[in-house]
């Protein structure tokens, strides 16, 4: 069982965390600026699935409920980075 280093709580077992989504799929658009349907659908459905470090959004759901941007190597499962996901962290 891996430990994730929650920036607010410190190292915690990964069962306290919930995977939410791929960081590539995050949209920070909050209104109707220049809506391009195809771009939107690509964001939702067509993400690249490359080998190696991968940015993911997780929530410390059974802890502080904070939101994290985790860099996880999908080849080794190693979590290389665990940062708060807040202002300006969008792709």
């Amino acid at each position, binding site marked *: 069982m891996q*430990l994730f280093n929650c920036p607010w709580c410190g*190292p915690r077992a990964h069962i306290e965390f919930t995977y939410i989504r791929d960081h590539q799929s995050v949209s920070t658009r909050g209104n109707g600026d220049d809506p391009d349907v195809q771009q939107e659908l690509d964001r*939702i459905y067509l993400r690249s699935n490359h080998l190696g470090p991968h940015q993911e959004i997780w929530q410390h*759901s059974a802890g502080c409920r904070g939101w994290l941007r985790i860099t996880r190597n999908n080849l080794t499962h190693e979590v290389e980075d665990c940062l708060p996901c807040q202002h300006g*962290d969008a792709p």
Partner: protein
Amino acid sequence: MSQKFRNLTGGNISRESPLDFRFNGTLYQGYQGDTLASALLANGVRLVGRSFKYHRPRGVFSAGPEEPSALVQLGSGPLAEPNTRATQVELSANLEAFSQNCWPGVNLDLLSINNVFSAVLPAGFYYKTFMAPRRLWPWYEKMIRKAAGMGTAPDQADPDHYLCSYAHCDVLVVGAGPSGLMSALAAARTGASVMLVDENPAAGGWLQRERLSMDGMPGANWAESIWQELTDLPNVTVRARATAFGYYDHNMVAILERVPGGNDKDLPSQRLWRVRAKRVVLATGAIERPLIFANNDRPGVMLAGAARAYANQYAVRAGSRAVVATNNNSGYLTAVDLADSGIAVAAVMDSRSSVDHTLLGMMEERGIPVDIGHTVHDTRGGKTLGAVRSGATDVIGGSQWMDCDLLAVSGGWSPAVHLHAQTGARPVYSTEIEAFIPGPSKQAEQTIGAARGNYDLEGCLNEGLRAGRQAARLAGFDTPDEDSLSLPETNGETLPYGQEAFWQAPRPGKRSKQFVDIQDDVTTLDIELAHREGYVSVEHLKRYTTLGMGTDQGKTSNINGMALLARLRQEPIPHVGTTTFRPPYTPITLGALAGGETGASVKPRRYTPMHAQHQALDAVFAPLGLWMRPQGYPRRGETMHQCVQREARAVRSAVGLTDVSTLGKISLRGPDAGEFLNRIYVNQFSSLPTGRARYGLMLREDGMILDDGTVTRLSEDAYFMTCTSGNASGVLQHLEYHLEVAWPELEVDLCEVTEQWAAVALAGPLSRGVLQRLCPEGTVDAVRLPAMGAVDTTVAGIPARIIRISFSGELAFEIYVPSSRGGELWDALLVTRDNTEVTPYGMDALEVLRIEKGFIGMGTEADGRTTAEDLGLGRMLSKKKWFVGQLALQRPGLNHANRLKLVGLTPVSPGDELPEGAQVLAQAVATGPGCSIGHVSSAAHSVVLGTAIALALVKGGSLRSGDTVYLADPARGANETIAARVTYPCFYDPEGARQHD
């Protein structure tokens, strides 16, 4: 009862505590301190089971976790535990054990016919033979499973209970042999918190099995004294009978502890520990390898170290007349200990070409002949060993038969690198000891002692001391003065290891069975065949021959198998490599992994603040997610159907009361709360006036409906949201995500308040009258509290929020009060001052009322595949603003004419029921797969129509209004379809006059 093979003195057993036990129904006696294996051997029981594939007789082969053949079933009925290693089962009073893999019995096994036909059962036999014809495979499979059995799983629930615990420590030491004990002691002296575990009931490891003196006492006693010292230290936890079976990420080691509880029902039978350690010291010892020669599997053939363990630890003679075959010096110690325990040692066969003269001297002293450059070629005997044939290592066909009933074999020792390798580290091959030793560590771990290939006692003690200090230092504990701990004085016979690889004796006959893997019946012929057929990778060899795939995971066979493959490939062993080491080290009970999380304890249960009131009314409860919620309140003599109809009718004609405390409730505050809601819901919220509520629909990013609910505006920047009970946590996460990750610029705070509020719905034409008498004058009249109005007031003196919203289609009020006063509210509403009868109603009546009105249900109509348009809610989609899921709705597929859309259904014959989940067909008879045009999503028996009604998702939707469709429900055994008419999906008061009155 005689223990013919037990010596009168010696051993670490309690002769004053005899224990009766049964094996295959026969009563025997052993002693406290025995294993089942040692007790069987003490009673002269040599035939323990039959082998997996050929059903050959098998006996005790080892004295530890590596046991490949003495597998027994313990107990019977629901307590039965199959595939248990007799060598690790502690003898206990009235223990019952049974042989496996034999039918009808171990002495007469009819399935041993497989042995006679073994020529047609080579590796890969099942794959090749039973390929065709395919239709016979089920029959083949049944027969193969019967013949190639590995015990029988119990078919009843396990009555034992198990516990899971977490623990943390600075230093975890696995193995309490000399290295581990020294290591734990050294680490403990620094003040670090230390955990020491060992799979055996007593500490000492091989010290239990040797005849060494340490600090002037027997090795086992020294081990016991250190164990005791550690037990007494406040910073140390020791656990005996605890097997570290898995090494996981970030230094988490899983340990299974067997709890000797006797008849104490409060104790778990096993405890699973998940230990997170800063540093781990692995002192897991080494496992002896057998030698490979023909018929090396007969009961009586045993690892040399095991024969020695039975003699020294258990005072049991594993035979009367022994031959020792070895490729290293430890075999001579076995010969000495066997001779000293009263076994006639007929000869030592040493495959090496030269031997140290001190060894020869030891043998000469005891009159034991030594054959240098010789080994065992073959054995004979019936159900046990009768004689061995020996000869030169390089000549086919040994020359000499020698009578014996015990053959002690040693093919060298393999470090137990299992846990080390589970970390992802790669063991490396040492040509010095011809075995895999630990490679560079992948975690905060160090492997020491025999597990590192160090087979010298003093060396092990030294290494343990240093490793313990180092582990503590790396965990942040400074080492105290170096002299505070000294090594014990040891004396006794110790010899250098001196092994010389000898992998396979000459095969006497073309088809002679030289077993490599005794548990899986894999022979040298199988490995040669696999190699010939191209299975030259060790991973392929494993799967093709099943080498090492048994419950012992090849602890005694893998290295030998790899060595043979390397020779066939004409490559060095490291080029062949090892197979992957995976947890668990030894088999573990699934119940232990589940721990206490079984039955009703799998998930927590949630009860509403009015639970006691429902119980007092004899409610029938049903789960709703984690909640327990009343399904209905049946009266005496009433069926559930009658009850639900009565409750629903009461709401339509008078007034009913239902508990809606399970609704998800979220409080939102902040200047941007209105904007936030505008983005989250498909409809407009910033325009909602204070003191008003609105029904809202939220979508996922892909445009599908996520949830519905209401939002009430409490003030300029405060809103109160409710969502579907079952969706509450998902909706909260959806909101948190958008607020924290997507739009952190919005100034909104949200807080889940589901458990802070108790809530009821009071519904029906008489509801206002009932409520009015409990509220301040005029609070709930039609003008001051119109439909979708909200007010904070008091009800029966309790501070309350009333929202005039209806999910039944009747005039209705949702009343929210602090959780602690929920019961009080319920009582006040139910017992009215003017004797109006208020009928409590449950989830089923609620469902009838919902379906009559055609309101969508989450999970039924909104099933994650439907859009607002599909469910007739397209008009809610705001065109003036952007919202989550808006763009995705433009996908052509979501606007296709053939999409499933919401319709109503009524039966053509008024008496017919409309089955929920039934497929909708356009014709009366199903014409084959794919002819379905939809399905029934919700169904009920309407109290206003007196017939069945249903909501359905059907291709074309309202275009089919008036059509007759046919409902097929073959999965529930209905042979004929039911005719139904497509209607508008609202069966009652479609204008909504009643709820807006």
